[in-house]
């Protein structure tokens, strides 16, 4: 009897392991493909890949992605500055006033942002910002990105704030702290890990989104930062454009750019990890 159970247990363990591997395998496949192909490109071009300019389709060199890289970093930073506080305040509203009409309305509104195709958000910003100001701009791109990443940050912040245990909340209130002070000082400290992860999620999404940028930033391959009201480049746009061409040197550059994007994300992750564990 017990031998039978032992084998069943073993079988179960094996199945769990196999399924887990199957689930993680695609991720590993993607990461290793990017690492291998991107690594080849970066090694062949050298540090010039990070600050150099594109090369011709006729050339054998993949060229550099400098302007696009700087552009992406600036856009990530800007969109988080715009999107995170908005998402945070909205989440606070939803968590502290869940019953109010306003609170519920906001919750539904933000969650439905998730459903809108990101290209529509880009088109919206295009007609509201780009056309009236007569220029593609970093601002427009950052705002479009901020709208796209808002619901993701919101959901995460909301979850983090909600999962603060009741006795912590009681402790804060029993010290005579008002709701506002409790939220902004105590709960944010307690939910620190979740709040920082939310920022990470926002940054990561901002780094990879392409559609909102199509009609807002213009796209620069040769020009670095011209100013917030001027066009700017971005790495996902570069990857998108290069991949659609039939030229192998551009494909190599796209792989390299993908690896750079991955490295940016991973290093962000590492930095935040260190800072959220004091």
């Amino acid at each position: 009897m017990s031998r039978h159970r032992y084998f069943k247990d073993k079988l179960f363990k094996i199945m769990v392991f196999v399924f887990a591997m199957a689930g993680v395998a695609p991720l590993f496949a993607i990461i290793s493909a990017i690492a291998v192909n991107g690594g080849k490109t970066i090694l062949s071009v050298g540090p010039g890949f990070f600050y150099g300019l594109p090369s011709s389709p006729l050339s054998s060199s993949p060229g550099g992605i400098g302007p696009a890289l700087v552009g992406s970093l600036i856009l990530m930073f800007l969109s988080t500055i715009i999107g995170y506080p908005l998402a945070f305040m909205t989440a606070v509203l939803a968590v502290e006033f869940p019953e109010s009409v306003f609170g519920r309305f906001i919750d539904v509104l933000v969650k439905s942002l998730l459903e809108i195709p990101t290209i529509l958000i880009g088109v919206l910003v295009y007609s509201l910002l780009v056309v009236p100001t007569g220029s593609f701009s970093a601002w427009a791109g950052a705002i479009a990105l901020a709208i796209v990443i808002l619901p993701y940050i919101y959901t995460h912040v909301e979850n983090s704030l909600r999962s603060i245990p009741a006795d912590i909340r009681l402790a804060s209130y029993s010290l005579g702290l008002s709701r506002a002070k409790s939220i902004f000082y105590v709960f944010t400290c307690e939910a620190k890990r979740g709040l920082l992860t939310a920022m990470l999620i926002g940054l990561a999404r901002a780094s990879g989104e392409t559609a909102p940028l199509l009609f807002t930033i213009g796209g620069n391959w040769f020009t670095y930062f011209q100013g917030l009201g001027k066009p700017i480049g971005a790495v996902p746009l570069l990857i998108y454009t290069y991949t659609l061409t039939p030229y192998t040197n551009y494909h190599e550059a796209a792989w390299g750019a993908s690896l750079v994007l991955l490295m940016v994300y991973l290093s962000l992750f590492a930095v935040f990890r260190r800072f959220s564990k004091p």
Partner: protein
Amino acid sequence: MNPAIMIEDLNLWIKNRQILHNISLRAPAYKITVIIGPSGSGKSTLLRTINRLIELTEGVRYTGMIRVLGKDIMDWDVYELRRTAVYVAQTPNPFPHMTIYENVAIGPVLHDIVRDKADLDRIVRWALEKAMLWDEVKGRLDEKPGVLSGGQQQRLCIARALALKPQILLLDEPTANIDPENTHRIEEVLKRLRDEMTIVLVTHNHDQAMRLADYLVVIRDGHIESSVKPGD
């Protein structure tokens, strides 16, 4: 001398179920008043009503009058009230992601009663000494409360409350989950604090009540059964 806390004819309902019936009680200043009764008799609820913490619960309604330091609690600014009569929960609940120092410091900082860092250091040390915890944590102020034992954490919560320099301490079964040695120490802390503040303590342990009480209030099913001075 005026009582620190005066409750008259308090009736309280939570979601239309009556929890407290005609409670009348006086807690004299600078004395330890012990409220004793079996579980579910409404002791915690009563304690939390005094500093209006009960308002955080859904569906609360009450009639009657409660005066803290002579003033009707509804006339108090609720946050000032909770700072003056600080509630300490039964299970230790220090803020897990703040350091020991920060746990004690956050109250004074956010109530803006600190002048500078040196002042804050002094307050933190004073509070921890009063809670008889200073010697055990003085080298570990930068660590999280998780490294402390249950008894130490409860003393940390008391220190946290003391840092606000309250006039009244409301303690909800403070040694219910604590080992005997820490229980003894906490009782020691409370006895020493008596000179500086009013203490209202809830327990279901008769021996503890006998050890600590200057005044004893017996409560059962939301009713006060008797209130005596243990000397009698």
